[in-house]
C-alpha cells in the first residue's frame, strides 16, 4: 500500500488512465455491439485490433518516415494510417463473421461452439502474423516491433502536475468523437434501428423485414472499424505492435464492456475510462505488478452489486 504514491501520481495517472481508457472504450465497442446483437463473446476481436496495428505498421514502413513530420505531412500520415487500419480491421471482423460465426449459426450451434471457434480464429490469426508478417517461417516473431514515432511528445498544457501532450489530446478527442458518431448512428439511422431491433428480439425483427445477416455484417464491420481507430490511436501513443498485442488489451476492453453494461454503447465508454483509470490508480497504490489483479477484483465486486454492469444492458433487453 502506498497512498503517498497515489497522491503524488494522481494527475499523471489520471491523464494516462484517460488516454488508455479511451482506447479501451473504442476497442470495447466491437465486443459490446456483437454481444448486443448475437449474445456472443467475440473472443477474436482482440485480433481485429492486432490486424489494425499491423496495417499501421505497414503504412509507416511504406512511408519510410525518418524524422518527425509536421503540419500537413503529419495529418496525411495519420489519416493514411487510420484509413489502412480501419479497412484492415473492418475486413478482419467481416472475415470472422463469415468464416467463424455464420456457418455455425446456420447449423444452429450453441454459443459455446461459437466461442471455441472464435478462440481458434484468434490463435490462428496470431500465428499467421507472427510467422508470415512480422516474422518469417523459421523465425516466428512475438516480441514487440517498434513503430516510428509520429508525434513528438509536445506538451500542450498542464493538468495539476501532469503534462498533457498533443498525442494524449488526439487520442481522447478522437475516441470521444467516434463514440458520439456511433451513438448517433445507432440511435438515429435506419441501420441503427435495425441493429437495436435485432438486439431486442431477432425473431420479431426478421418478421418486421429486417435483413438479419446484413445487420449482423454491419455490426461486425462497425465494431471492426472502431477497433481500427483504436489501433491507430494505440500506435500513435505507444508506438509498437506485436502478434499478441491485442490479447491483454482485448480482455481489458471486454471487461470494460461488461463493467459498463454489455450491449450498452455509453456503458462501453464509461467502462473503458473506468478500467483505464483503475489500472493507473491501482498501480500507483499497489505497484505496477498488481495492476491486473486490481482491475479484475473491481470487476467482480461491481458485478456482485450490479450484475448487469454500471449502466445496465440497453441494446439487449431480452436476456440478463
Amino acid at each position, binding site marked *: 500500500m502506498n497512498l503517498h504514491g497515489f497522491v503524488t501520481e494522481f494527475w499523471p495517472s489520471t491523464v494516462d488512465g484517460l488516454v488508455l481508457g479511451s482506447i479501451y472504450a473504442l476497442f470495447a465497442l466491437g465486443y459490446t455491439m456483437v454481444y448486443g446483437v448475437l449474445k456472443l463473446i467475440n473472443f477474436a476481436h482482440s485480433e481485429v485490433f492486432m490486424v489494425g496495428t499491423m496495417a499501421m505498421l505497414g503504412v509507416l514502413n511504406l512511408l519510410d518516415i525518418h524524422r518527425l513530420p509536421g503540419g500537413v505531412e503529419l495529418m496525411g500520415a495519420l489519416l493514411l494510417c487510420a484509413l489502412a487500419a480501419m479497412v484492415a480491421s473492418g475486413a478482419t471482423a467481416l472475415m470472422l463473421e463469415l468464416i467463424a460465426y455464420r456457418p455455425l449459426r*446456420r447449423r444452429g450451434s450453441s454459443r459455446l461452439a461459437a466461442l471455441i471457434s472464435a478462440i*481458434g480464429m484468434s490463435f490462428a490469426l496470431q500465428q499467421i502474423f507472427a510467422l508470415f508478417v512480422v516474422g518469417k517461417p523459421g523465425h516466428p516473431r512475438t516480441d514487440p516491433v517498434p513503430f516510428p514515432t509520429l508525434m513528438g511528445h509536445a506538451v500542450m498544457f498542464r493538468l495539476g502536475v501532469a503534462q498533457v501532450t498533443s498525442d494524449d489530446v488526439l487520442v481522447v478527442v478522437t475516441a470521444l468523437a467516434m463514440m458520439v458518431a456511433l451513438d448517433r448512428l445507432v440511435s438515429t439511422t435506419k441501420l441503427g434501428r435495425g441493429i437495436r431491433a435485432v438486439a431486442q428480439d431477432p425473431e420479431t425483427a426478421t418478421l418486421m423485414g429486417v435483413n438479419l445477416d446484413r445487420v449482423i455484417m454491419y455490426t461486425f464491420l462497425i465494431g471492426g472499424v472502431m477497433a481500427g481507430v483504436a489501433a491507430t490511436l494505440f500506435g500513435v501513443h505507444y508506438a509498437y505492435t506485436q502478434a499478441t498485442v491485442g490479447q491483454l488489451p482485448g480482455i481489458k476492453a471486454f471487461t470494460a464492456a461488461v463493467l459498463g453494461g454489455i450491449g450498452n454503447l455509453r456503458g462501453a465508454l464509461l467502462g473503458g475510462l473506468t478500467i483505464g483509470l483503475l489500472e493507473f490508480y491501482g498501480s500507483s497504490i499497489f505497484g505496477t505488478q498488481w495492476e491486473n489483479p486490481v482491475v479484475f477484483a473491481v470487476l467482480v465486486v461491481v458485478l456482485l452489486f450490479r450484475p448487469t454492469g454500471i449502466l445496465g444492458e440497453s441494446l439487449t433487453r*431480452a436476456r440478463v
Partner: protein
Amino acid sequence: MTSGRFSRFWATQPLWSKAILVAALFAVLAIVVPSGPVARIMTPQSDWPNVLSEDIGVYTLMAIGLNVVVGQAGMLDLGYVAFYAVGGYSFGILATRDHLDFWLILPIGIVAAAIAGLVLGAPTLRLRGDYLAIVTLGFGLIISQTATNLKFDGGAQGISALPHPPSIDHIKALTYGVIDYKPYWYLVLLGIFVAVWVVRRLERSRVGRAWIAIREDEDVAELMGVPTYRFRLWAFAIGAAVGGAGGVYFAAQANHIDPTLFSYQVSILVVAAVVLGGSGNLFGVILGAFMVAWLPERFRGFDEYRVLVFGIALVVMMIFRPEGVLPSRRRRSEMTEASGQGLSAALVPPDLEADA
C-alpha cells in the same frame, strides 16, 4: 451410437465382470500403451512415457474435472487453471517447506482446490453465463500474475527441487525417479480411473440429474424445486477438486513449478479439449484431452505451425462437428436443435435449414 450400445452392455454386467473388464483395461493402458513399439508411432521425437505421464495424463484429469462444470452443469469456466495452480502450489509449498509426502498432500491439495472453488464460485455463480465466463477468465489471467507477485510461493522463480512421490524400493513400477516415467503414468492412470468412477457415480445420481436440469433450462429447474445455485456451486467445487488433484500430481512429477506453467492458455486448452472431444461425454473429453496434449508433441517437426494448425482445427471442428468427436447423445440433441436460445433459432430461417 457406440457409446449408447456400450452403456447398455455395461449396465447389464454383474459386478465381478465389471471389475475384470476395468482391471483388463487398466492393464492394457498401463502395459501396452507406454511400450516401445507404441512409442515409436506416437512420439518419435520425444520420450513417450514422459508425454503420457505429463501432458496427456494431466490434461485428461483436468478435462474430466472441467467436464463436470462445462459438460454437466453447462457453465463456461475460462479460469480453470486457477484450481490446477492451487493444487500445484499446495504440493510445492507443503512438500518443500513442511516435508509432507505426496499421499498426505494429495487430499490436502484436493480440499484446498475445492475450497478455492467455493470461494470463487460463491460470488460469481450468482451471475449468469457470459458474465461467469469473463469473471473466470479474469481470475485465470491474474492467478499466474498473483503467484509471481507473492513472496511465500517463490515469486517468479517458483519452487525448485520438488520431491517425488515416495518410492517403494525393489518394485520398479513404484520407484519414482527422473529417468523412467512409467511409474508416473501408472499413478496418473490410477487417478484418472478414480476420477472417472467418481464423476460417473455423480452423473447417475440426483446431483447429476440436477446438473442436467440446470444445463437445459435453469429457470424451469428452479421452478421444479432444484436449488440451482447450490448445485452449480457443487459442480464448481467438484470440478475444482479434480483440477487440484491434477495440479498436485503435476507438481509431484515435475522437478520445478513456476507461474508460467499456470498461464491462462492452459484454461483455454482444457476448454478446447472438453469441447473438441464432446462436452458432456466422459470418453469424449478424454479423447479431446488426448488430442490437445498429443498432437503438438507428435508434430514437433512442424513445431512452429502447430498452434496455427490447432487454431484452424478448432474452427473447422466447430463448423462441421460442433458437438465434438464423441458427442454426448443428450448434448447433441441440444446443440443441433437450437433449443432454448430463441436467437439462434431465429437466425436459421426454415428454408436454409434444409441445405445446411
